[in-house]
């Protein structure tokens, strides 16, 4: 129960952060990706601020033996670069550039009631389901999970 409340609060703060930062504005995201034209560097500061806080916070939190509300930390351990990682990132980046949406802002953006956001959100969900139905089981037999 407490973990659920923690999840809700983290989500709310994350959503406010995405909104304030301008990530929820697809035109602004595409402005960031337009390095060769009219470049808006704002999102580099969003990423820089978020990574900076996480860089410090991660080190402080991981000094603990366990999380406050759970038995163990569940953090990815892989360090290898494989074709799924790179291919997936390229496909994701292409979709990001086409639409101006990545998953977080597309979900937070549902709050603003714009029809185009719902169109993107539904297509994104279909993309997830298509992956799970076609490539959801890795060659090793391990079920695919995203970080």
């Amino acid at each position: 129960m407490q973990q659920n409340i923690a999840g809700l609060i983290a989500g709310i703060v994350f959503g406010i952060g995405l909104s304030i930062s301008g990530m929820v504005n697809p035109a602004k995201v595409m402005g960031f990706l337009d390095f060769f034209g009219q470049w808006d560097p704002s999102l580099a500061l969003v990423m820089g601020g978020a990574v900076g806080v996480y860089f410090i916070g991660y080190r402080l939190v991981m000094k603990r033996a366990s999380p406050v509300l759970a038995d163990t930390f569940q953090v990815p351990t892989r360090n290898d670069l494989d074709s799924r990682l790179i291919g997936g990132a390229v496909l994701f980046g292409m979709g990001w550039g086409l639409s101006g949406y990545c998953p977080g802002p597309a979900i937070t953006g549902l709050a603003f009631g714009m029809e185009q956001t719902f169109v993107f959100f539904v297509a994104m969900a279909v993309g997830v389901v298509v992956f799970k139905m076609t490539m959801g089981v890795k060659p090793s037999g391990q079920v695919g999970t995203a970080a």
Partner: protein
Amino acid sequence: MDIVNFTPLSALIGGLLIGAAAVTLLWLNGRIAGISGIFGRVISTDQSDNAWRLLFLVGLVLGGFAWSLGGGDTSAITITAGTPELIIGGLLVGFGTQLGSGCTSGHGVCGIGRMSPRGLASTICYIMAGAIVVFAMRTMVGA
């Protein structure tokens, strides 16, 4: 290159909040705040231990509501992509993030914050791919 529409203060404040939210989820629940991973699990056949995930996603929407109720300028939000781009883009984002095990939050914020080689490699690839698509759409298609 021209620099336009630069909003450093709101970008930095928003980024700090995003980082704080991700640290909170790690500190309390021991989990990575990877939105594509959380979303993928919520709409999968494996519904074990999913209540916190669903509530995290509900929180993302509530955060948007809170910002707009608190005076956030939703009228500035502009979606230039047409319906075909939104549909193709959504399919690519959904499929690609599952194939590549993460997105801007899991690989970008948490991955780079943990100094993960996979997070850094993914982030370089999706930013480059996005930049190439934006450049191509503007120059070749004229969009």
